[in-house]
């Protein structure tokens, strides 16, 4: 008797499949756009005008870091909550409701961005993923963004509701680990997305509708980063959950320590939000002391990631030894390297270590000035969200899609090649980006080739760096297509199999009984998180409002659709200058 997820929760499996497919679609489109950018910037192949580069960049960013990651997250968290509580969601119509809301939001955002290159759509949202004012997008962009975020809030409520129902039936039990992880993640998501909600609902949306005529750019920017850094942990936490609950099982063993896994998620709940100002180390109008607070909090946020590195490697070693592995390092040979789910996650973890190191550089208040907004940063987040998260999600799909469809993966060997190809492609691309950032090549720039000066690499040439990035981007895109092909053929062509493994997650060597019950006190940790946020943000926000006003000193909106010839603009600059 087969006991896969689709057999246990057929209704929920449908919603999760829908969420995962939304996510894969975003991955395919976003990945393709990434190749266009990689070739354009490096001047290998330019077939779009450079002005349109920024439309492509906006879509690439939004589709991959919002749509791809968060649709996957809601799918996986629904799996985690229902599997670990062993009960379905309370009302499946509600579940479909938040999925529909997120989809509608994505559609609105997508169409408004597409307006940047399609003349028939009278909209424009070439404002990049950060939509810094005074850039003003079409109202549909902001409305879509709000719908999407509110959809995730309702999804979180769905999981809380399921947990409350479970708690009533199991008053004395500890929260199962996967549910604990989903709930703590949602708590910091609620806390941090308040920032972007205020930014959009109180300022940007009324402004784009003409209700108010000025905003304070520093204020909306600070509110964005109030949300903008926690969102990276929102992407990362499902990957962490998979490393904690799936990777040990795939390695053939058990999770090393349940208590420390809980501690890690509690630390993320507490520390994720009061760090956003570390994206604003170079911003005027924020006192140095506030930047120091953000820096200190950020550094302490290294702790849960360093703990995770230990636990994940220890769990893998335990798995390998269960499979007969021996010796100091020879146990590595005993791991299931043929399994794309395992290998993908292990390689993602390895690259995350590299991404973590470049992240420590970024967090360093003073050295950040060298790399801020350079290509280094792009290299960094392609290792973190672009590999630790994306590769883990793709790898996990090789386990989840059979669970959700009851079908075997169409071609597992191709899956292995796909995850390895991602690793190789990302090595080339992110290595070159990091190095290019060190000698000053900027990010978010269609043509980083300037008239008055050229860049001076310490080793090699700019042309070699460009070639390395273009090669990497091509391999990564190929990898995405292999992944999508495999998933499509599994879903429509794969045969239903009785050999699908049971739907379970990893057991633990040291269980929840080894940790004090206070760890499960979500109210306590949330209160501490709120207090830390107040400490980190109340004074900076107050001083920004005090100095620049709630609505700024007469800031005019700038609609990116108004494209003018730069030579005319230069003349007008000379005109206004005395």
């Amino acid at each position, binding site marked *: 008797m087969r006991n896969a997820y689709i057999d246990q929760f057929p209704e929920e499996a449908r919603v999760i499949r829908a969420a995962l497919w939304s996510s894969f679609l975003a991955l395919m489109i976003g990945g393709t756009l990434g190749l266009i950018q990689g070739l354009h910037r490096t001047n290998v192949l330019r077939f779009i005008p450079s002005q349109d580069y920024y439309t492509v960049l906006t879509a690439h960013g939004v589709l991959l870091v919002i749509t791809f990651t968060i649709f996957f997250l809601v799918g996986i968290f629904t799996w985690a909550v229902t599997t670990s509580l062993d009960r379905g969601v309370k009302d499946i119509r509600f579940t479909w409701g938040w999925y529909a809301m997120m989809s509608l939001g994505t559609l609105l955002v997508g169409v408004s961005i597409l307006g940047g290159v399609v003349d028939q759509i009278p909209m424009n949202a070439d404002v990049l993923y950060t939509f810094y004012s005074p850039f003003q997008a079409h109202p549909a962009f902001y409305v879509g963004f709000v719908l999407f975020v509110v959809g995730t809030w309702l999804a979180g409520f769905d999981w809380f509701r399921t947990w409350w129902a479970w708690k009533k039936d199991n008053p004395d039990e500890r929260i199962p680990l996967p549910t604990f992880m989903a709930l703590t993640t949602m708590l910091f998501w609620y806390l941090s997305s308040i920032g972007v909600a205020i930014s959009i609902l109180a300022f940007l949306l009324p402004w784009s509708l003409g209700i108010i005529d000025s905003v304070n750019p520093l204020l909306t920017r600070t509110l964005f980063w109030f949300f903008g850094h926690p969102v990276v942990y929102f992407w990362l936490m499902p990957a962490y959950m998979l490393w904690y609950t799936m990777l040990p099982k795939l390695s053939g063993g058990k999770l090393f320590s349940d208590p420390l896994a809980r501690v890690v998620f509690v630390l993320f709940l507490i520390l994720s939000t009061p760090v956003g100002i570390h994206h604003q180390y170079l911003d005027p*109008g924020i006192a140095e002391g506030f930047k120091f607070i953000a820096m200190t909090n950020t550094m302490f946020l290294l702790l849960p990631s360093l703990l995770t590195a230990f636990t994940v490697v220890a769990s893998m070693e335990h798995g390998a030894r269960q499979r007969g592995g021996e010796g100091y390092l020879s146990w590595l040979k005993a791991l299931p390297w043929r399994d794309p789910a395992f290998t993908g996650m292990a390689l993602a973890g390895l690259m995350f270590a590299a991404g973590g190191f470049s992240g420590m550089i970024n967090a360093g208040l003073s050295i950040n000035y060298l790399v801020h907004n350079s290509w280094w940063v792009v290299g960094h987040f392609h290792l973190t969200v672009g590999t630790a998260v994306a590769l883990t999600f793709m790898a996990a799909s090789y386990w989840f899609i059979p669970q959700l469809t009851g079908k075997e993966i169409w071609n597992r060997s191709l899956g292995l090649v796909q995850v390895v190809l991602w690793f190789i492609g990302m090595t080339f691309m992110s290595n070159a980006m990091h190095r290019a950032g060190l000698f000053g090549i900027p990010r978010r720039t269609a043509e980083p080739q300037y008239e008055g000066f050229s860049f001076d690499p310490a080793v090699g040439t700019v042309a070699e760096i460009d070639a390395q990035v273009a090669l990497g981007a091509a391999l990564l895109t190929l990898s995405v297509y292999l992944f999508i092909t495999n998933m499509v053929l599994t879903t429509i062509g794969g045969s239903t199999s009785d050999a699908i493994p049971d739907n379970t997650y990893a057991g633990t060597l040291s269980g929840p009984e080894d940790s004090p019950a206070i760890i499960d006190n979500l109210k306590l940790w949330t209160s501490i998180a709120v207090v830390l946020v107040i400490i980190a943000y109340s004074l900076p926000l107050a001083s920004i409002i005090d100095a620049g006003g709630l609505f700024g000193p007469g800031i005019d909106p700038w609609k990116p659709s108004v494209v003018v010839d730069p030579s005319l603009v230069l003349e007008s600059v000379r005109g206004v*200058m005395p």
Partner: protein
Amino acid sequence: MNIHTYEKTWLAVAMVLIVGFIATITYGAVGPGIAMIDDDGGTIDPDTINDDERFSDPGVTHVGGNEYEAAVVAQAWAYTPSEITVPANSTVTFYVTSRDVTHSYTVAGTNVNTMVVPGQVSEMTVEFDEPGEYGILCNEYCGAYHHTMEGKLNVVPEDEFDLTELSTEAPDEAQLGNQTTINTTVSNDMNYDLETTATLEIGNQTVEQDVTVPAHGSETLEFAVDTTDFGTGDHDWTVTVDGHEGSGTLTVTNATEGGDGDA
């Protein structure tokens, strides 16, 4: 709580690493005194930039000793001024603001880097030790032609640096027998008076005038030219002050050949 010994060791090492990072950054701030961009620059209404004392006449000015100020206005998609020249061994405080959207003011490949947010003034102090040439670029997306926004920073040897500017004003034509003048305005953005000599060369004549230009001020000199000395024809002239040159051509015509006779 039950924590494995290895994990305790790892935890301790991780904490040492974290505290070490914070300690080194703190030392960098209080020891060598690496300062961050902060709120010292204050706020500004972008519409009033042209009336602002600092930004109405952007560029480099001398504060005293080896200290200078550079005011820069960023705007899609250019900096005013686009080129900055400062001497080596100087300390330069940049004030940068934006007329429209968020930009950055970034000296490529260095840690001279600040965001330029409309409504705010970014204040950043930089020490330049060695002469060199650097590119300036905008690293924050600022619209369709963001990639064209660039500038230049020249750090020149001290003995090649000054803040003297020269402009000349002279008629193109004069009638033979008349007097005319070549006006020369010398401005000085140093924080001390400039005592120098202005030299006019015209034809085979050389005229010198001593001049004292006050700090942050300017002085206009009149070189009187008697056309009878040269005769009809085109006469190139050059005014030189401290290595700066202004030049033009004076055409001397016969009184009968046109003109109203008293130019």
